[in-house]
């Protein structure tokens, strides 16, 4: 009960934030009612998915300051668990998703224990290496379809099917992921005020001091890594049902890991709204740039060049992201 109260309590934010966030939430809720193109709908779903990925990354990377660049392997674990269980044994999404989370969290404990002995650059590169090893294994593992991947055939599982999360229209997927999105925000709101949240910020500021205060640094990091993993894995399972065709290259490539970290970084790592702002800017930009410059003008790669320039400018001149700029402006006003 206390937990729920804490999760619903946004009173420490300025009123302006709450008004903006509330009106955006209402906008998201009524978005499907407005006339929209299927492209806009797909972009919205992508946006919500990547906000959730970003929120997960934000726990360990933002509040904890541990740059994790290997989140894609947990996207893969979630996606593959759901797909394999559905295709081979006809187990619906709502059962396989928690199983996928269990697998991902278990794997995160196995990896987290040695990984968190490392710090800084070493940690970041080691997470990339683990993710690439898992991807290579999945590319030769026949049981999960090797490099071809697996397909959820709409003939075998006729839509609409709420239990298996197979729909024809994107609107239903939108509703499901929006539900996850709100739950995610409430969880993060609780998390930032929880004991672990404060411990992590202490670790980020100064690890030695945190340890001297009696915080079990290693265990706190592993726990948070597992939380981040659970977020990512849930969205990975959703991704499998939404895309219906998964292969190691799409779900577990390094680009996904970096994109996840980038959402939170651009918006402002270590703040509640950061990942949502980041995803809200990057995802529409990415898909529309690709549509206009890549497909229409025929310039392959130019969308990613602009994208890379944004990353470079942000990391060189405003490493605390857009939320950092907002806070700077506010502080100057006071």
């Amino acid at each position, binding site marked *: 009960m206390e937990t729920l109260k804490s999760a619903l309590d946004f009173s420490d934010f300025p009123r302006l934030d709450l008004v903006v966030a509330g009106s955006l939430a209402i906008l998201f809720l009524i978005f499907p009612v407005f006339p929209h193109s299927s492209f806009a709908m797909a972009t919205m779903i992508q946006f919500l998915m990547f906000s959730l990925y970003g929120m997960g990354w934000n726990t360990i990377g933002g509040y904890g300051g541990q740059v994790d660049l290997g989140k894609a392997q947990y996207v893969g674990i979630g996606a593959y668990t759901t797909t394999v269980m559905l295709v081979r044994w006809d187990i619906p999404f709502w059962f396989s998703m928690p199983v996928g989370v269990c697998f991902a969290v278990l794997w995160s404990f196995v990896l987290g224990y040695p990984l968190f002995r490392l710090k800084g*650059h070493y940690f970041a590169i080691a997470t990339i290496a683990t993710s690439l*090893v898992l991807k290579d294994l999945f590319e030769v593992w026949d049981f999960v379809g090797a490099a071809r991947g697996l397909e959820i055939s709409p003939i075998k599982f006729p839509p609409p099917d709420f239990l298996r999360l197979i729909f024809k229209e994107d609107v239903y997927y939108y509703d499901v992921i929006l539900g996850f999105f709100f739950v995610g925000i409430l969880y993060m709101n609780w998390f930032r005020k929880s004991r672990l949240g404060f411990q992590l910020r202490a670790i980020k500021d100064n690890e030695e001091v945190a340890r001297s205060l009696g915080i079990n640094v290693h265990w706190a990091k592993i726990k948070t890594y597992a939380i981040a993993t659970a977020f990512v894995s849930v969205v990975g399972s959703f991704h499998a049902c939404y895309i219906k065709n998964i292969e190691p290259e799409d779900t577990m490539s*390094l680009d996904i890991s970096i994109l996840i970290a980038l959402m939170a970084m651009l918006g402002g*790592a270590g703040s509640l709204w950061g990942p949502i702002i980041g995803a809200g800017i990057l995802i529409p930009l990415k898909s529309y740039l690709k549509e206009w410059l890549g497909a229409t003008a025929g310039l392959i*790669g130019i969308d*990613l*060049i602009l994208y*890379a320039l944004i990353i470079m400018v942000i990391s060189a001149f405003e490493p605390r992201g857009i939320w950092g700029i907002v806070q700077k402006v506010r502080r100057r006003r006071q």
Partner: protein
Amino acid sequence: MEILLSALVSGLLLGLVLALVALGLTIIFGVMDIVNFAHGEFLMVGMYTGLLTAQGLGIDPLLTLPVAGAVGFLLGVVCYFGFIKFLLRGPMVAQLLGTFGLMLFLRNLALLIFGSEDRALHHGLLVGKSFDIGMGVIVSATKLAAAGLSVAAFVAVWLFMNRTRIGKALTATALNRSAARYMGIPTERMNALAWGAGGASVTIAGALIVNFWSVNPFIGLLFTMIAFAIVALGGFGSVPGAFFAGLVVGLIMEIPGFWDFFMFTFNADWMAKVPMTSFKYMWVYLAYFVIMVVRPRGLFGWKH
């Protein structure tokens, strides 16, 4: 026996070239504690430079090395003054993602300019030639030349870092930045020099590799990861470490060859069923992970 020997030789030769790839990364890391994700993309630039100069001017690919080195030096210095300088003020997250942005930028620029198809050299003094060095081991001439030049480059860099005045200043900056500044060493220019030297060594490695490896815009990441593994094994910032670790990683990449040897020797059918060649790069990543966890300092590292 021939299989074992040829696997050993080709692993060692590849290792020498890979060590040169990692040399630039270890210099940059040693001097300024920044991990360059765009390292493999610098290599790709070197490969394209070598390929296009050789094809455009109609000269032998081995003569393009100075051009590639000059391009790499320029690229490194421009990157430093135009971009990396600003990154150094920020936190580590920003540095990681910033160089990642540089990697995406270079990769997609190459994609825009050159297209996504594989390109390879077909002409040249050594391309396609090979000779028998005895005991049934056949070595392609390009690989042997590349390995030899790589050793020469290592000796040159080692002499530069330890015998010349400017190289000693570079080493001093790597050991202790503020102390070096008190001694009157212009550390800012040393950073730029480290980026220039790192860039030049990796583009030279690229111009060597293009003799026996086809190039496309996406090739960078693989070499970045291999270079990370070598640098981690040898110790971040250590030049001799990179050399020996390169040999080890070259042998690790030849694991499929050794696997074949054991398969034929013991006549083990079950071993043939394992798709070993698909795991070629996985061993490198795995080795990196194990080294980092067991001995983060690396074999020769003095930084942690």
